[in-house]
């Protein structure tokens, strides 16, 4: 059994190959359209990985993480577009604001058991959509804010091709995945796993559920805010519908579920599969066929949830266990 690819050298080799495949993608993909899609994979993959810290690891389903994403995104376009400040300053600002919102939502709801957190997060999105629409002085209202064309470079996060931005997004994804892996294998990760599997038993095991959930939520909100900030820089534009969209909420949850919430690499895998799939479907299927693509997508998701609720990661772990005799 020891020589099978479960050992450390094999794992490191696998990570290196995956990293190389990621960072060489612009070389072998060539078309800038594909690279743009990969930027989205990295940004939404990172955001979904962030969502998973609380939503997946602890099974505290948040339907409001788009708010953290939108806060980060608005921070960037307001800093760059309105104030003429560096987008790099917008990132920590977005983190701080997102963490404040996270504390305000987690503080009351995590002291209760049941679905209060999910319900409270559900209400967040419309609230922030309304704020973004009517606080025109800050957000430009429903018209939104556009970032003017600036000299290209790392300081402005504007580039002539999508490739440099891809590398920034890829670095974010890798860092977030390292964080997610570290959390998974940490004391907090074991506590979150206990909470996910059996809240009553975790109390009897002496786990302070409130503190564990708060820690995970704060980290989660911060990660999603950073991804949002880069998304704002990438689009160079933000309006309420883009920043605070149900679609983003749905995607963050879906990527994690399709990839597998138990795994630190699950959400990124989900984004890597679903985003190109969606783009391909909407590019190939036009007119009435476009609806067909959406339908196929929906049917696929229903089948997955029915037959493999642990996602592709779960499927993979079953195969892995059969092949190696070890749990993943």
């Amino acid at each position, binding site marked *: 059994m020891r020589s099978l690819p479960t050992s450390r050298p094999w794992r490191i080799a696998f990570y290196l190959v995956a990293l190389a495949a990621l960072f060489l993608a612009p070389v072998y993909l060539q078309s800038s359209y594909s690279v743009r899609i990969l930027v989205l994979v990295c940004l939404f993959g990172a955001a979904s990985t962030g969502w998973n810290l609380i939503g997946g690891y602890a099974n505290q389903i948040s339907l409001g993480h788009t708010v953290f994403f939108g806060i980060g995104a608005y921070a960037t376009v307001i800093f760059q577009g309105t104030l003429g400040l560096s987008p790099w300053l917008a990132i920590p600002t977005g983190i701080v604001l997102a963490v404040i919102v996270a504390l305000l939502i987690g503080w009351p709801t995590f002291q209760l058991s049941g679905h209060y957190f999910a319900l409270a997060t559900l209400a967040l999105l419309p609230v922030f959509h309304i704020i973004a629409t009517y606080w025109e002085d800050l957000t430009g209202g429903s018209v939104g804010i556009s970032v003017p064309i600036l000299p290209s470079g790392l300081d402005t996060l504007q580039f002539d091709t999508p490739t440099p931005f891809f590398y920034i997004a890829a670095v974010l994804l890798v860092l977030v995945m390292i964080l997610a892996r570290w959390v998974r*294998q*940490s*004391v907090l990760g*074991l*506590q979150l*796993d*206990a909470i996910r*599997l*059996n809240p*009553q*038993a*975790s*109390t*009897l*095991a*002496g*786990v*302070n*559920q409130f503190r564990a959930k708060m820690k995970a939520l704060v980290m989660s909100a911060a990660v999603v805010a950073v991804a949002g900030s880069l998304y704002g820089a990438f689009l160079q534009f933000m309006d309420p519908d883009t920043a605070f969209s149900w679609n983003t909420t749905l995607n963050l949850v879906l990527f994690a579920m399709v990839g597998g919430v138990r795994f630190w690499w699950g959400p990124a895998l989900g984004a890597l599969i679903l985003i190109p799939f969606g783009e391909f479907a909407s590019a190939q299927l036009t007119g009435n066929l476009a609806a067909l693509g959406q339908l196929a997508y929906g049917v696929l998701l229903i089948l997955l949830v029915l037959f493999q609720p642990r996602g592709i990661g779960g499927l993979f772990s079953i195969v892995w266990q059969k092949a190696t005799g070890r*749990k993943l």
Partner: protein
Amino acid sequence: MSAILRVQDLSQRFGGLHALKDVSFDIIDGEILGIIGPNGAGKSTLFNAIVGVVPPISGHVWFKDEDLVGVPPHEVMAKGVAKTSQSVQVFDEMSVLDNVAVAALLKNDSIKSAREAARGELEFWGLQSFADVIAQDLTLAQRSTLELARAMMLHPAVLLVDEVMAGLNEVEVDQMLDRMMQANRERGVTLIVIEHNMRALMRISHRILALDYGAVIALGEPAEVSKNQRVVDAYLGVE
């Protein structure tokens, strides 16, 4: 002969049901106290009130000069009063080792040392060879034992054991009794044990407390309590 836990006038109400009526008793440091009573007598309710899983409406639970009423349950566990649940509550999709390691985190701040401590605890309960097994693949007896191991991993001064022997065969019951008595003897844990298996309870208990309709109807030596007319009536339904 000092009391380690002093339950004082504990009352619980669920709507119109007066589930506990001014329950008072002392538990002596190092003893094994058995709790008996017909179904619905309030035994599990009493446990849940003591550790704060379902806080009582009134009364006190004195532990080392501190009232546990109002303390959140995970803090009660940390202070030294642990509990197992009536229906086995383990982390099904977690390894046996990690099931216990979760509790070891209370006194260990790294995963590694928590797992090491958990290994030692599993050994005490005879589960060491199942460390890497996923908990849901265990037999009922093993799962019940695992829950005891997890609770003991908290190094409690007092452990409340709620019907851990339900569904076990005679051999398994005897093994579990031996281990519980060993924990009591060698590790000094005070045990309060709810059990329907009277043979088992008579064997391990130093004293027995009988509950009926949420009130204490008898408390004393096992032989004495089993002959008590009110206890016999409660069980046979006379009146």
